[in-house]
Structure formats: C-alpha cells, structure tokens
C-alpha cells in the first residue's frame, strides 16, 4: 500500500475491479470514483456483488483485476500497513453486523479502538456514538438480546469509532424504522460535511434520496 497525499484525489477510486469465486462471477468489472466529502449510494440487484465490492474496498480481500485506491492507499498485491488501514482509514458497517456476541454494545464499539486510542478517549468516544445513535439505554446489552435495528446501529457506531475518512455501510438502514433511519442518515450527512466520505450500499429509497449521488451496479454476467 502506497500512501498518497490525503488532500488530493478521490476518497475511493476503483478501476476495472472484478471478483470471481471459482466459476461464480461475484462482481463484473466496475469503475467507481467517490470524491472526498461525497455521500454515494450504491444500488443494484441482489447478488450483483455490492458486498463483495465493499469487502475489497475495506481491504478484507483482494480484487482479481483492476486497481483500488482508498483514502490515498493503494490496495492489492504487496499492500502493506493493512492493519492500520482497516483500523484508521476505513470503517465498515457490515450487512450482517458482525458484532462479537459475548461483548456488550459498548464493548463492541470500544473493541475497535483497543490499542488505537487511550482508555479515556475510548470511553468518551463510545458514549458519544452510542448517544448519537440512540443506544445509550442498550449500551450494556449483548447483541443476541438486541433487536436487528439496534444491532445495525451498534455496527454503524463501531465503524465510526476511529473517525476514519471513509465509511463503507452495507445496507445500514435495512431494519431501521423511519426515526432511526433518519438518525443514521443525518449522521452520515454530517460526517460528509466534516470532510468524511460515505459509500452506502442500499435498496432503501430513504437512503438513496438522501445521498449526493446514486451509482448502479449492473447484474454480474454468469461465467463472465
């Protein structure tokens, strides 16, 4: 991973990026560019590879083809400092939340900051996020006892914990009621006003109408 200058170039740049698993084409080659401060909503039919793209942008796996640059970091073969990248440069709110069942909502948020921030800052930041996402009352509860919408918001709080320049949110409002969805949308908008970038995958019209721009991924061609 080569470190670029954080002040110029797009927040997310993908060119000719594709992925297949065996004979399954998970993502047909795609180009995507998101500017700093932009709030982009990614739509496309189920199975077209939206989550796959998010995983690659978050450096959880490598693309088969193409070039990816996120927050000035070139990902792909030979990329280095990936732990730092995953922790500080990008925050992912997963489609399936991926919370740690044994830890409380608060601890799930703090786990992302272990070793990255001082204890007092970890506490302060987690309280701030739980409050912003209306989770203070559930802070000491564990994921198995939380509702789907609550889990989703904990996942968003965790993604924001280290204040990464780029947020990747996979169906962040799928199980949220209107009030909660509005809360999340406001947080994302504010994030972008402060210079952050949000790429949200969503079928939710509430979200796509709130974004600066909607990008559509066409369905992957079988066998490609």
């Amino acid at each position, binding site marked *: 991973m080569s470190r670029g200058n954080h002040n110029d170039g797009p927040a997310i740049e993908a060119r000719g990026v594709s992925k297949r698993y065996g004979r399954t084409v998970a993502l047909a080659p795609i180009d995507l560019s998101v500017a700093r401060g932009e709030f982009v909503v990614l739509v496309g039919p189920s199975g077209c590879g939206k989550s796959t793209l998010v995983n690659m942008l978050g450096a959880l796996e490598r693309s088969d083809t193409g070039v990816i640059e996120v927050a000035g970091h070139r990902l792909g073969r030979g990329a280095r400092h990936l732990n730092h990248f995953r922790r500080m440069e990008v925050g*992912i709110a997963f489609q399936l939340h*991926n919370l740690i069942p044994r830890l409380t909502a608060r601890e799930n948020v703090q786990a992302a900051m272990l070793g990255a921030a001082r204890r007092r800052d*970890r506490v302060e930041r987690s309280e701030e996020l739980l409050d912003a996402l209306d989770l203070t009352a559930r802070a000491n509860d564990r994921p198995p006892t939380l509702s789907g919408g609550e889990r989703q918001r904990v996942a968003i709080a965790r993604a924001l914990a280290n204040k990464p320049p780029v947020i990747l949110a996979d169906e962040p409002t799928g199980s949220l009621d209107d009030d909660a969805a509005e809360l999340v949308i406001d947080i994302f908008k504010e994030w972008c006003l402060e210079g952050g970038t949000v790429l949200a995958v969503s079928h939710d019209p509430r979200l796509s109408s709130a974004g600066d721009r909607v990008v559509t991924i066409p369905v992957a061609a079988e066998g490609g």
Partner: protein
Amino acid sequence: MTFIGLILRNIRARPLRSALTALAVAIGVMAVVALGVLTDSLNHTATQILEIGEADLTISQKNTDDIINSTISQEDIAKIGQVPGVRRAVGALLGTDAYDDQHPLVIEVGLAPEDQAPFGVNILEGRSYGTDAANEIMLGYVFASSVGKRVGDQITIDDNTYTVTGLYSTNVSFGNSTVMMPLSHLQGLNRLDGQVSLGFVQVDKGARVETVGKAIDEAFPQLATIATASDFGRADRNLMLIGAANTGGSILAALIAITGVLNTSLLSFFERIREFGIYRSIGWSRRRVIALVIGEAVVVSVVGAALGVALGWGAINVLQQLDQLRGIFQPIYKADIFTRSLSFGLTVAFLGALYPALRAALVAPITAVRRE
C-alpha cells in the same frame, strides 16, 4: 473496557471450561510441588547422616542401595585411622527398628562410648552406657520427650528392654530423634559382628580434605569417600532414583497440563474463528490476536498454578501421614517453590496456547463476513 478486561471477560464467558483448564494446570503444579518438596526433604534428611559425625569425610561401602545398608569392617576403619593426614576415624553402625505406631522408624546408632565426644554427641543428662552393656541405652532428647522416657526409665525396643542411662543432643536435629547403644550390642542384634555402616573421618589441621579422600579411595577400592551432599546423592542409589522420579514426574505433569491448555485453547479457537476474523476485519494486528489467546491461557494457568501450590501443600501433608515416610520426611519448603510454580504455569500456558494463538492470528479478515 481494557485489553486485560477483555481477557477476563472471555475467561468468564466459559466458566466451566476455564475452571477445568485451571484444574489441569493445578494438578500439574501440585505434582511438581509435592515431588519437589519430597525430593528436597528426603535429600536433606539423608544428608544429615553425613553431618552427624562432624566429619570432613564420610566413608561408605561403594554401590550400596541405601546408605543405611552399607557395611564396612571395623579393621578397615582402624586402617583408615593410620592413613597420613587422618586425625581420627570413627565407625558407627546404623540400624532401624519400630518402636510403636507413632514411631515406626527409629534409627539406632551403635557407637563405642569413647567415640561419642569426637562424633559430636553431647550428653545432656545422665551418663553414657558401658562399652559392652547389653541392657543400656541413651536416647536423643527429642525422641525421649516424644516417647515420654527419662533417665532411669525402662524402654523396650523390638523385645529388648533397656535402662535409659542418659539423654543426648547432636550437632544436627536429625540426630536428636535417634537412640544410641554400644556398638558391640547393636552388631550382635543385627548379626554384623566386626562391621559398621559408615566411617567418619576428621583430617589433621592443615591437611587437604581432597588429598586425604583420594588417598583413602586408592587404598580402599571397595569404599566410597563422601565429602559433600552431592557426592552422597551419587553414592546412594535410592536418592538417585528419587531424583530421577522427580524429574520424570515433573515432565509428565507438564505434558498433562500443556495438553489440558492446548485442548481448551484449540476448542475455543474452533468456536471463535469468526470472532478472530472480526477482530482482524476491524484492524487488529496478528500480534494483538496472539496476545489475546495467550493472555487468556496465561491468566487461567496462573490461577491454576496458585491453586496447585495449595493442593501441593495439602498433598505434602498427606504424604507426611504415610507410615512409610513418618519420621524420615520432614517437609522443607524452599523459597523458590513459588517462582517455580509460577514459571511452570507460564510455560504451560505459553506452550499450550501457542499453536491455537498462531492459528487465530492466521484467520483471514474476510472470515468475518463469510456466511456459515
């Protein structure tokens, strides 16, 4: 939440499993503590025999199973007395007998009255026995008070009745629990006429102990000269066997404990693969994941080690009650028993958790999002 807090949380989340792992380590530490204390103590008790004669060199028969079964002829002792550099050589016969249930193993020392003073025997009360008196005995003062006998009382040991002529102390505490009688009488009882068990040699002032020892070794190839406790360990096959049993037992205990920790950590690893993937996906380094897994094992093992020290202490108390060991096993706790147990716990934790920790560190971040 701190990193240590997370470790404790993970341990508490599986209380039964953690407790059983701690127990495996505890049993290992218990074995190490009990074997270690037993070995140290038996060594100590045995080597006190060396010190009792206030001798520079102790002479025993070569290659004897137990130093107490060593036999040397009195003529050899007399000849040793003539070796240049030897100031004095005294022979003593050692025997054992049961007195009663509380004193199943009493050590009898057969010693000529004139050899008592050079041997370091200090008469506290009464007088010595006659040179060939068959019915006179002296008691170490600790033994005397333990059996409630005083000067002038009668005492019966193995169907022989004696009059107690005196009480004595010796330079080592072990000697105070023995009884002493004329050499010729103990030889007669044991059908060992003309034989003693050990010789005690004091060298001339200015003579070197090693030089004199070498001269004796050369002149008497059937005998072994013992100058130090470790020489003694080599001369006494039983002590060698105890030492080997201690080493072997400790290794076995370590393997059992390591297997216990490995089993738990590996089981947890398989259950937590996704969790490790999540940690990696939110930016934890491999090193941090390793620290988490090993940290959990270390905490459990250290708790187990502490429990093991307590269990070991209990085991020693049980051993002390065993008839076979009563009287010869006085536990000696060396200060390093705690550091030894702690390092045992840490080693077991590290070795047991290393492989699962490496497996955990190698879980790919993408595992977090894979559907089961």
